[in-house]
Structures are given as structure tokens and as C-alpha cells.
């Protein structure tokens, strides 16, 4: 039994199963993703959060033997993004990802942010410059780097690098932005900056964030899904999950009794 949400939907996951060759990592997942809201995925390490997130941009297609079953319907055009008939590149054009560790390319700040535009064949200089600037502003990094966009990205601090990665993911105007524990490698100050940023961003883009930090989920998200052993145990509005969880397992997890 999974709660149905009443707002506008950006995506709907139906009966999703996922296999790493023979190991089934996701089981019968049903979930609705509200448009321009933040959905958090929590659960103990190894429960399948990353696996689930990477279904949304077909990252699993990069490795042999991986197999999806079921549907992830993307609205408004009702595209089943995990259908083998759909080109993964088409999906990744619409759904971007920010990884766990900051991972800028060994290129300049500018070229990092421009990467997604370049692979789309965008070569009009002024347009690229505008979009890079806009993305850096959206990622709250512009003020800090505007005088050194031609510097190598490695010269930025860890938190700045992660915001750079967010800018890079935003530059191509994605419809959904995926975050996989984006602050796990950062210190508390950098973390709170990123959390603030994520809350700002939901005005413009639908966000799914994996976190093993429950306070973070409680602070930033509108909806929370609790996963355990590859299944969704509970999904509801974040307040509800954290104040009145309907499952014993959820309660045990959020009160820190395991995980």
C-alpha cells in the first residue's frame, strides 16, 4: 500500500524491479514523484537507494547484465523512460544527476558547466556564456567564481566543487535533478549551503535526493520514501513520515534503532 499524492506529477514509478545480473536489487517499487517538489529517499546502507536513483537516468545501461522491469513514466508526455525502445541519451538529456563525491572534469570552471551544452552541439558563444552564467547563479556559485571561470575547477574548495557539479547538471535545463548523497563528502558549512540551494532549486526543477542523513531529509524534502532491502516500506509527506510513521520499521529506523 503506497500513498497516492494529489499534486501534479512529474513521474510515476510502476512495479519497478531491477536486477544486477541475477541479484534483484529493487522489488516491486511503486512511487509518485511530485512536480517541482523534493522527494527524499532514505534507508540503511545497501537498501537500494542509489540503484533506484540511477534508474531515472538509465545509468545502469552503462554496464552489462543489468536489467529493468516495469515502468517509470515521465510526465507530461507519458514516456516510459526505462523502456528498451527509448534511447538512454534522450532520457539523460532531460534528467540530470549530481553524484556523491564532487567530480569536476580536469577542465576550467567554464568548460565544466558548458559540458552538457557542448555535447548537445551548442556552439553559439554568447548563448553558452549566458547559460553558464545562469547555471552558476542558480547554483549560488557565481559570486565566488565570476572572476576565475577560466581557472581549473580543481582549485575550488570541496563545497564549491559540488556546487559546480550542480551548476553543470543545471546548465541544460533538466526536468528532474537527481542527487545521490550530495553532501556526504562535505563539511557542515558546505553542507548547509547545499541544502539551502536545493530548497531554492525546487522552484524550477523536480528533485529526487538520496540521503542517509535523516535530519537532512526532514529539513529539505516535501515527500519521503523509506526503503529497506530493495523495497519501499513507506512513502508519504515528509512531516507525516517523521512524526507519525505508519510502519514499525520506519519508526525504528528514524528513531535510530537500526541502520
Amino acid at each position, binding site marked *: 500500500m503506497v500513498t497516492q499524492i494529489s499534486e501534479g506529477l512529474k513521474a510515476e514509478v510502476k512495479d519497478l524491479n531491477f536486477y544486477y545480473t541475477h541479484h534483484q536489487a529493487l522489488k516491486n517499487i511503486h512511487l509518485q514523484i511530485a512536480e517541482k517538489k523534493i522527494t527524499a529517499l532514505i534507508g540503511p546502507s545497501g537498501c537500494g537507494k542509489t540503484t533506484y536513483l540511477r534508474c531515472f*537516468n538509465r*545509468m545502469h545501461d*552503462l554496464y*552489462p547484465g543489468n536489467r529493468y522491469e516495469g515502468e517509470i513514466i515521465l510526465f507530461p508526455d507519458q514516456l516510459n523512460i526505462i523502456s528498451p525502445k527509448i534511447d*538512454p*541519451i534522450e532520457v*539523460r*538529456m532531460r534528467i*540530470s*544527476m549530481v*553524484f556523491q*563525491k564532487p*567530480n569536476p*572534469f*580536469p577542465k576550467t570552471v567554464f568548460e565544466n558547466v558548458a*559540458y*552538457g551544452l*557542448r*555535447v*548537445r552541439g551548442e556552439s553559439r558563444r554568447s548563448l553558452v556564456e549566458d547559460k553558464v552564467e545562469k547555471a552558476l547563479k542558480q547554483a549560488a556559485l557565481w559570486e565566488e567564481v565570476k572572476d576565475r571561470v577560466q581557472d*581549473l575547477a*580543481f582549485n575550488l574548495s570541496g563545497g564549491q566543487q559540488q556546487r559546480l*557539479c550542480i551548476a*553543470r*547538471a543545471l546548465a*541544460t535545463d533538466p526536468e528532474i535533478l537527481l542527487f545521490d548523497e550530495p553532501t556526504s563528502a562535505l563539511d557542515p558549512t558546505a553542507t548547509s549551503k547545499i541544502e539551502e540551494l536545493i530548497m531554492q532549486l525546487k522552484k524550477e526543477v523536480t528533485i529526487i535526493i538520496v540521503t542517509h542523513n535523516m535530519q537532512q531529509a526532514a529539513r529539505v524534502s516535501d515527500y519521503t520514501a523509506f526503503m529497506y532491502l530493495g523495497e519501499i516500506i513507506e512513502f508519504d509527506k515528509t512531516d507525516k513520515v517523521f512524526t507519525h510513521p505508519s510502519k514499525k520499521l520506519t519508526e525504528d529506523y528514524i528513531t535510530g534503532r537500526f541502520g
Partner: protein
Amino acid sequence: MRSNRLRYVTQSVAKILIWIAALSTIAVMILILFQILREGLPILRLSFFTQSPKSMGREGGILTPIIGTVALTVVAIIVATPLGVGTAVFLREYTRESRISRVIRFGTDCLAGVPSIIFGLFGFVFFVIYLNMGWSILSGGLTLAAMILPTIICTTEEAIKAIPYSFREVSYSLGGTKWQTVTRAILPNALPGIFTGIILSVGRSIGETAAIILTAGSSLVMPTSLFSPIRTMAVHFYILAREGISMEMAYGTGAALILLVLFVNTIANGLLNRYIRHRS
């Protein structure tokens, strides 16, 4: 107590052996360099580099062998680099571990271990005779290309292997195609490694003799096209010494060869350092 003592003795013996190994290597190197440069440097006047050899090399300079060395090396590198880099990219990015990739890898490993004279024989039979290219810059260059191909494949593969997986994932996650990922996220990072492979190959090409005599000949006539036969510096050195034409000129050629290798390595190192500094 006893085991401590034993460890101490082992440690000291190992240290001494390592020092002996290192020092003898350096000593041999210095001895060779010293001998050749002592005999050869006095010969190196400017005219030695700007004149063609006269009367079999007894007099004159080594202009034609210098041109031969450069021409063959350039042909070999131009042919082998794209092939080698392409093969390495194919093996690393376009195939999973499969029968094809195993066959290619087995082939290149074997090629790497084949003595150069075998390449010479192959080049002679295939390029010189069968394809009717005769003894020529082209036959010699292609033979050298076959010889250095495994080195370039291997160093490129190692360079690609060392690139963090995250660069690939990011590139794909931003909508990159495989080709874009290879050309924008992988090759730029593999460039220093590829470059190292090319430098090793240049060194091997410059120093090769047997395979070149069989495929490019040993002509001292100024070449006019890729189909002209040619003599390289190493071959010149070999013939001068072996046929007792002029030990003096042989040492001069040897010294010039050493200077050329040093020159190429210095330039290459400089370029590489600049590239690396520019990127990090």
C-alpha cells in the same frame, strides 16, 4: 633477539645489493656515453650536419642519414599513433572483455615480444616485394610502425585505465554519446600517457638498424620521395663501423645520435610538463 639480528642483516645485505645494482647501471651508462662522446664530439662541426656523406661516408657529413632517420620516424609515428590509439580505445571503451578483445590483446602482446629482425623480414616480404614498394622510406616507415604499434596500444590502454570511472559516468549523465565521452572526457586525460608511448616509440625507431636495412635499404643518395631508399643514422653508424670505413666518422655519427635522442627527450619532457601544469 636472534630474529631481530637476522632482520637487521637481511636489511643491510638487501640495501648493499640494491646500491650495487643502481651504481653499476649508472656506471655502464656513463662508460658508454663517455666513450662515444669522447671519440665523437670532436668530429661534430656544423658542416658534419649540413653535408652529405662523401666516398661511402669516409668524408663529408651525415645530412642524408639525419634526413633518413627523421623521415622514417615521422612516417612510423604518423601511421602507428592513430592506429594504436584507436585500437586501445576500441579495446577499453567499445568492447567488453570478449573473444575479439582477447585475440587482439594476445596479438599485440606477441608483437611486442617479436625481435625486430622478424619485423624486418616481414616488411621485406610484404612491403618491399609483395606490395612492390621497393627499399623505400615508405616500406621502412610502415615496418617501424608495425614494430612500435604494441607500445602505443599498451601505453594508451594503461593511460585510459587510469582515468577515474566518474569522468565517464558524468559525461554520459550529461547526455554525452560514447564518441563524445571518448573524445572529450577520456582522450584529453589520456594524452600524457599516449605521449609517453610515442616518445618511447621515437627512441626505438631512431635506434633500429636490422629491420631498416631490410626495408629502407642503405642508400646515401638524397631521397626525392617516399619511394626513395634511404639510410638512417643508426644504419650509417653500423655500416661505418662494421665495414671499417671510418671509426672516426662512426663515432661522430654515434655522438650525433645520442644528442638527437637527448634533444627529443628534453623537448618531449618540456611539452609534457607544460601540458600537465596547464591542466592541474
